């Protein structure tokens, strides 16, 4: 019984914290975007616009809730719920603090001891695309449908590198349980963080996570220039807010995963180690974890205004021609190292070598393409660059 109450309380606190964080992350993103573009950002509601999220939330609540006349009502209403539900559900197995030395009556994970944690997260977060597809389809709007089609193709393509890049970590640690993944890194210290042995996997994971969360430069399913609003064109008021919350929760979950899988979770040398036994050590560990996650989120926001959006064929090429083969090769490398009992540090040069190998292939493919274009077009009597673009 006490366990049930603790669980319910943890859920309430976690969901409340996530939703509030999302509101303020949106403010932060708007502010950061403004700063990057030499604007000021929201600054009318309260000092520095700190009450802007409240105003936005209120606006979402009291706005007219439009359902298009020809829309499929049930699915139209279900889609945003699915979108938010699945992303929130994924958070159940993500530890947001030091699980091993949590104080009494405090839980740092909603569902502890889930041995298939990573699999669960991928299973549930890839369900989020149902929300997108249903929403786009039920809207009875061609732009929405196009957006949701793009989203489905994109999510299916990026699920594969996302999952396979994590398999390397799972193989190294011998566990799919996120608590144990963190514990393994914390035990080994700073140089045991998986970023050192799996830098390539970290890169692939982060890239695919951006694509999974529909963040720029991979937000093709909702790019305004081509699709009005994408799958949520017809959505307004609270239903749109649910989609938005779901998307941001996805970003938060993915940032947590990046930190937990590759950057040592709550571990930080000297400050927060498994041995640190000073009073309030758990609080420090939580703060370390949260600040790491915060840095990842800020980095995602920086990326948003740094890299232009991919074209759809480029997006597909990146996944199928680069990320999937790379993550496969990386996984095979980890398997080889584990099987023959080599020093795990071999994985660092292997990762870098793989990355360089792909770079060289990319260069030679591009050069071959240019050469080919040269020859073909001269035969036709046209200027080499007069034809189609890249």
């Amino acid at each position, binding site marked *: 019984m006490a366990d049930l109450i603790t669980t319910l309380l943890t859920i309430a606190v976690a969901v409340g914290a996530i939703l509030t964080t999302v509101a303020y992350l949106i403010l932060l993103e708007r502010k*950061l975007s*403004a*700063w*990057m*573009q*030499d*604007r*000021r950002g929201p600054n009318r509601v309260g000092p520095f616009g700190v009450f802007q999220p409240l105003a936005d939330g209120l606006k979402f609540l009291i706005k007219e809730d439009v359902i298009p006349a020809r829309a499929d009502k049930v699915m139209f209403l279900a889609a945003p719920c699915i979108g938010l539900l699945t992303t929130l559900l994924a958070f159940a197995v993500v530890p947001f603090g030091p699980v091993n030395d949590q104080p009494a009556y405090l839980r740092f994970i909603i569902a502890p001891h889930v041995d298939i944690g990573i699999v669960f997260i991928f299973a549930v977060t890839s369900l989020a695309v149902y929300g997108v597809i249903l929403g786009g389809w039920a809207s009875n709007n061609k732009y929405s449908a196009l957006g949701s089609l793009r989203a489905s193709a994109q999510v299916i393509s990026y699920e594969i590198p996302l999952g396979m890049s994590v398999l390397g970590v799972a193989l190294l640690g011998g566990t799919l349980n996120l608590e144990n993944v963190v514990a393994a890194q914390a035990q080994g210290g700073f140089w045991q963080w998986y970023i050192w042995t799996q830098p390539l996997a970290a890169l692939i994971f982060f890239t695919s996570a951006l694509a999974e969360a529909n963040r720029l430069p991979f937000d093709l399913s909702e790019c305004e220039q081509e699709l009005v609003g994408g799958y949520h064109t017809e959505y307004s008021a609270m239903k749109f807010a649910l989609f938005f919350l779901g998307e941001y929760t996805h970003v938060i979950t993915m940032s947590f995963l990046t930190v937990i899988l590759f950057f040592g979770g709550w571990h930080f040398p000297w400050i927060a180690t498994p041995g640190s036994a000073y009073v309030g050590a758990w609080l420090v560990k939580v703060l370390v974890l949260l600040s790491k996650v915060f840095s990842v989120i800020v980095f995602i926001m*920086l*990326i948003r*205004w*740094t*890299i232009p959006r991919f074209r759809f064929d480029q997006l597909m090429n990146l996944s199928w021609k680069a990320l999937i083969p790379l993550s496969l090769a990386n996984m095979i490398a980890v398997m080889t190292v584990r099987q023959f009992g080599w020093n795990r540090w071999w994985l660092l040069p292997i990762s870098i070598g793989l*990355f*360089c190998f*792909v*770079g*060289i292939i*990319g*260069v030679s493919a*591009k*050069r071959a393409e*240019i050469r080919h274009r040269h020859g073909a077009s001269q035969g036709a*009597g046209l*200027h080499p*660059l007069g034809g189609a673009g*890249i």
Partner: protein
Amino acid sequence: MTAAADNQDVIWVEEPEIGFWEATFLPAIVEGLKTTIRHVTNYQPVTQQYPEEKPILPLHYRGVHRLNRDEQGRVKCVACMLCATACPANCIDILAAAAPPQWPDRDKYPASFVLDELRCIYCGMCEEACPVDAIELTHIYDLTGTSRNELMYDREKLLDVFDQTKDDPRDPTRTRRGRLGPAAEFGSLPTVAPATPITPGDRSAQAPAPGVIHPHKPSDWSRKPS
């Protein structure tokens, strides 16, 4: 190369060779991140905080009209209807009346002068048409009202605008003569200076001054003003 490439008017640009680092995307991403981070750390917003911070408009800005007064405080307008005729939006409505006998310098004056600020397109042609420099456009741009009637500016309102703006350095009374009447002299008047300082490179500075009619020597039109 083909004959097309020899044509000097066309500059063919070769696609640059892609190198190893370009193919990996990484240096480009790092460069881009440096740019975005530099904008955050070295934050110099260009936004103007409008209601608190008013813009400094160029001197030739065309805002709300005013009807100028002469030295005796009378309305300068002689109800000649040139502005109403010139107006492309038909927003000026003048009712002319015979001038009082104590005003010997003119025949008519506007008994009513109504200008619809909502219809006006602020082209400034009334100002150019006016032979006695009575109507001018000021720099007032934030014109608001609660009804359409409120924005039908009559003679008194337009004179009020003059009283408000006559001392503003940005709205100098642009007449050079200070007295009424001899519209017929316009052929011999000096060229009207533009309201804004213009650089010699401007095309408008090189053209014969607009609105000046040379009655005698049309050949002068081709000559640039010195």
